[in-house]
């Protein structure tokens, strides 16, 4: 499951059934609200998101395991804040200048980053990639001079082709190792021996992809009819708005 982080997980939960535009708006609202949240409100919001992820089919433990590298990064954020912020010493150890204020600020920053990551995870595991791409396209449409369809397609292709390029790189690495590249003492040679063929293969793949997309009529303006939001969508939007407001009030209080 950890390998499938940020990929769509089919399901029939209420979150899966919500309009993607509502979920995108909710992600935006949660991300902006997180900037103003205090410790208690942040803990509440994190717990709520973990519960919602569990409802969408991602148990809290699996979520945390899948996010382990991200959590490590957050731990580094907390440590660096604790060590670099001046204030009341946290421990009576002279060579470890960690401060209580630094720890608090670090925890707050890490909590906010985790909140945004969990909200993003909730969005991606409950939304079909195509629907997500279409919603991004819908959001970009009113912005002048932005080729909304191309931008949305690029996002989709990036997601699709990262694993392809990585497996091509792995294949090339194996082929180079079979020809004793590890014995080479020139790091630049090792780099170019992998980089140049990989770049050539990637461009070749891009060329073939262009032909295949053209063959399937890509290029024409896509007319997508968006259904208007239903009662459930509006109710969810209102609920998210109320929750954000309540969390802000709790932080102020």
């Amino acid at each position, binding site marked *: 499951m950890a390998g499938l982080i940020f990929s769509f997980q089919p399901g029939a939960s209420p979150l899966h059934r919500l309009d993607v535009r509502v979920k995108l708006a909710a992600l935006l609202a949660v991300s902006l609200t997180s900037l103003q949240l205090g410790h208690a409100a942040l803990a509440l919001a994190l717990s709520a998101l973990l519960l919602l992820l569990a409802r969408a089919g991602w148990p809290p433990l699996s979520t945390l395991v899948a996010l382990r590298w991200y959590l490590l990064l957050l731990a580094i954020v907390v440590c660096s804040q604790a060590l670099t912020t001046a204030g009341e010493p946290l421990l009576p150890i002279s060579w470890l200048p960690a401060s209580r204020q630094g720890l608090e600020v670090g925890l707050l920053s890490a909590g906010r980053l985790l909140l945004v990551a969990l909200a993003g995870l909730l969005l991606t595991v409950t939304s*079909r990639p195509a629907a997500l791409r279409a919603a991004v396209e819908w959001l970009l449409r009113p912005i002048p001079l932005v080729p909304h369809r191309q931008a949305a397609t690029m996002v989709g292709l990036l997601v*699709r082709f990262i694993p392809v390029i990585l497996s091509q790189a792995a294949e090339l690495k194996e082929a180079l190792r079979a020809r004793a590249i590890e014995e080479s003492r020139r790091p630049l040679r090792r780099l170019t021996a992998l980089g140049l063929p990989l770049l050539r293969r990637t461009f070749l793949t891009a060329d073939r992809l262009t032909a*295949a997309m*053209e*063959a*399937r009529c890509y290029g*024409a303006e896509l007319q997508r009819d968006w259904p208007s939001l239903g009662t459930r969508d509006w109710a969810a939007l209102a609920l998210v708005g109320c929750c954000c407001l309540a969390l802000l009030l709790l932080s102020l209080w």
Partner: protein
Amino acid sequence: MGEDIITISGLSHRYPDGRQSLSQIDLRIPAGAFVLLAGANGAGKSTLLKHLNGLLTPTSGEVRLAGRPVGEDLRRARQLVGMVFQDADSQIVGETVYDDVAFGPENLNWPAVKVEANVTRALELVGLIGMAERSPHLLSGGEKRRLAIAGVLAMEPAVIVLDEPFANLDYAGVRDILSHIVALHAGGSTIVVSVHDIEKVLAHATRLVLMAGGRVVADGPPAVVAGEVEAHGVRLPTAIRLGLEVASWLA
């Protein structure tokens, strides 16, 4: 056989670097035919196929689909002629199997209900309906090839063109893809298959077109043309060499 669905007349093509890839090709393919396009690497097979739906433009001559020139309406040409490329990995664009099959019908701006119905039917036809939500990256080589075929079928093409459909497949994979091609032909589709090894599919073809050096060097019933293939860099099936009839790989 029905009326000609593909008419190629005087088709020549030269790449921008000056290389002549096709010279004076004349072909008429009736609806419902199963054409095997054979030739060694570099014979011009893939270049010819790319002219059938306007991916390449002729230097001279023209290609007509059901009576109308390809260049007149590229959208119609690409819907009418579904093309399955040799490298399945670089033609799969969707993040999931379902999304990939829906790519073509969505581009045609078909209503959502029709898109869904066509995607479901195409996935059922190629036996991938249970994998609709999987990432294409996780499919096997044969499954990726079937997905590429489904992506084309969902667009309701009259002609299905397959460029080296058996490349890099094991025996089971070849049989699997071949059975789908044969079933599509039996269902009324016109099939054009390009190969450099004719043995796998010869028993099912109704016509064999042999290419060499960008020209059509032989064209006719498989039993008649097969004898000439080795002179143009294509391996003669062992059965013919032994004076036997070529058996189907599905038998």
